[in-house]
């Protein structure tokens, strides 16, 4: 069994081993600390000054990463908590992303900004957000997110191959969960990964009642809901988990589902889900029987106290209720 944090750690080790151009920067990433979530453990010991613990300077480290990338290297920048990527917004949006195009010719900026995101850990309003939505629709910028299905090494290779800056979200609740292996989720569900999209299905169900689209951090809550929906409500769902959030890759199989539901942990309003629906509506217009259901966290700050936080963020029961209601 490999935990997601270990898997990411191995992927970074392999990447830095095979590609001497890769540099990694971030607060407290060096050994023995190895990063706030231990994802960079061992890297500084092994790769010396290609790995640097930085001052508390999110804006500047994103800019330094962009500079390394501009000068022909590849850079991975860790933002300790995704919330603080707000401090790097200018460097990412107005420099890194724009520079790939604003000089009238393609300028490669192979930069990956890793952002540990999400809540359900009681860290409070400034350490729990899922800020993906703030970066959607920025020309030149791609958004990816870790999932428990995707090989992180392949995702890093894919992001660097774009030659343009990418944000890579890693939901903190995933770190201690295991990577799924061998196509099996559990006794009920099987999965396959095709390109950017992981697809989780019930054996033998070709036309699910509902297809649920989620980002990596929502996977376990969606699976919990799917299990309840099947066993308690006799509703068969399949799950689509794109590792690339924006631009959205082709999501397979949706025409055969009776309903589509997009679930995310970002706060309500201007959401990733709305963007997914925008992309899907023209494609599915003739087969859709009802509007796509969009579920997100409440239009709210994320409280520190767990009993309040639970109410704000999306929980399995809410997914289940929304799907039951939509199909009733």
């Amino acid at each position: 069994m490999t935990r997601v944090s270990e898997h990411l750690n191995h992927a970074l080790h392999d990447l830095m081993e095979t590609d001497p151009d890769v540099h990694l920067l971030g607060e407290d990433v060096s050994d023995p600390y190895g990063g706030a979530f231990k994802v960079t453990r061992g890297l500084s010991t092994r790769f010396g000054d290609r790995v640097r613990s930085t001052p508390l300077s999110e804006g500047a480290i994103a800019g330094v990463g962009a500079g390394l990338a501009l000068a022909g290297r590849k850079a991975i920048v860790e933002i300790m908590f995704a919330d603080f990527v707000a401090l790097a917004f200018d460097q990412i949006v107005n420099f890194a992303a724009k520079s790939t195009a604003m000089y009238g010719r393609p300028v490669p900026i192979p930069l990956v900004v890793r952002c540990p995101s999400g809540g359900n850990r009681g860290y409070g309003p400034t350490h729990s957000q899922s800020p993906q939505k703030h970066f959607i629709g920025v020309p030149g910028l791609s958004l990816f997110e870790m999932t428990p299905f995707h090989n992180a090494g392949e995702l890093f290779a894919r992001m660097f191959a774009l030659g343009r800056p990418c944000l890579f979200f890693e939901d903190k609740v995933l770190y201690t969960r295991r990577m799924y292996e061998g196509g099996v989720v559990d006794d009920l569900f099987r999965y396959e990964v095709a390109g950017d999209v992981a697809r989780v299905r019930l054996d033998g169900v070709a036309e699910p009642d509902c297809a649920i689209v989620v980002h990596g951090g929502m996977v376990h809550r969606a699976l919990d809901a799917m299990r309840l929906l099947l066993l308690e409500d006799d509703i068969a769902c399949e799950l689509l988990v794109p590792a690339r959030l924006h631009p959205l890759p082709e999501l397979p199989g949706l025409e055969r589902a009776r309903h589509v539901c997009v679930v995310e942990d970002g706060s309500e309003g201007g959401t990733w889900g709305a963007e997914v629906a925008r992309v899907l509506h023209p494609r599915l217009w003739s087969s859709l029987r009802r509007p796509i259901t969009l579920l997100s966290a409440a239009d709210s700050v994320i409280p520190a106290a767990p009993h309040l936080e639970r109410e704000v963020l999306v929980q399995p029961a809410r997914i289940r209720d929304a799907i039951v209601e939509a199909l009733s």
Partner: protein
Amino acid sequence: MTVTVPAPTGTTPSGARRTPPPPEPEDLELLLLIRHFELTLLRLFEAGELSGTTHTCLGQEYIPVALSRLLGDDDFVLSNHRGHGHFLARHAEPYGLLAEIMGREGALCAGVGGSQHVYHRRFLSTGVQGESLPVATGVALALKGTGALACAYIGDGTWGEGAVYEALNMAQLWRVPLLVVVEHNGIAQSTPTAAQMSGRVAARAAAFDVLHHRVTSLEVGEIRTELAPLVAMVRQDSRPLVVEFATHRVGPHSKGDDTRAPEEIALAAAHDWYDRYARLFPEPFARIDRERRELVERIAAEVTARPPSAWERP
């Protein structure tokens, strides 16, 4: 500009140079209240009673305690992630603070903010480093001319954030009564200051013509005497001042994440006022220590038994 004040004497951790006078009982009570509050949080965490994270100020308690009597009711205090001591030295409301941290009835901010985000009676903390200094400058601008000041606590690591400099520039340019208290404990999370700061805090303040004063004493009374005229100057002349405390983080950054070498931890511990006072002033230390410990135990038991906090979402 650096203000020169005669070097304090009782600065050695071992007390080798001379024995300082005993702290006043109220100061010792407050120091020990904060100490036991923090130790209790770590204990509650281990027992699984607390979630999220917490940053204790073990070893640094004397800083807000020293400042407490230099601040007036109309002053505004801005604090950071390591803010429990800052709060308790400002407001004697340990029940409310613990309830906030535990998400229980009576919480200062309904349990929404938790350990790092408290706004209560002119005390405000937030968990994003560097954010507070521009805000403090704005508060100080509003207070300018009233005799009140804005006091902002930041760590040495937070000097990595550009907002700190944008704020210092404006604070001096506009002559606002801003007291920046730097708790320079030589480390930011796991990164030693030497690995994240080029130059010195004093020189950075000097670059903006901001007054700077470095405090090495660990004695509450001594620090107060040293700072009183400077703080008065912030109010009267309406100008910013950076007070940099050479201090030590005795505990982990948050919980269980101390990767410092044993010698470094021992060095920090050697500066701890707690052991020193226990040794130098066994009476009244032992009595007050026991009283505060028992008080915090009662607070923790009472708050733990309360129902969860209620919050009306806007």
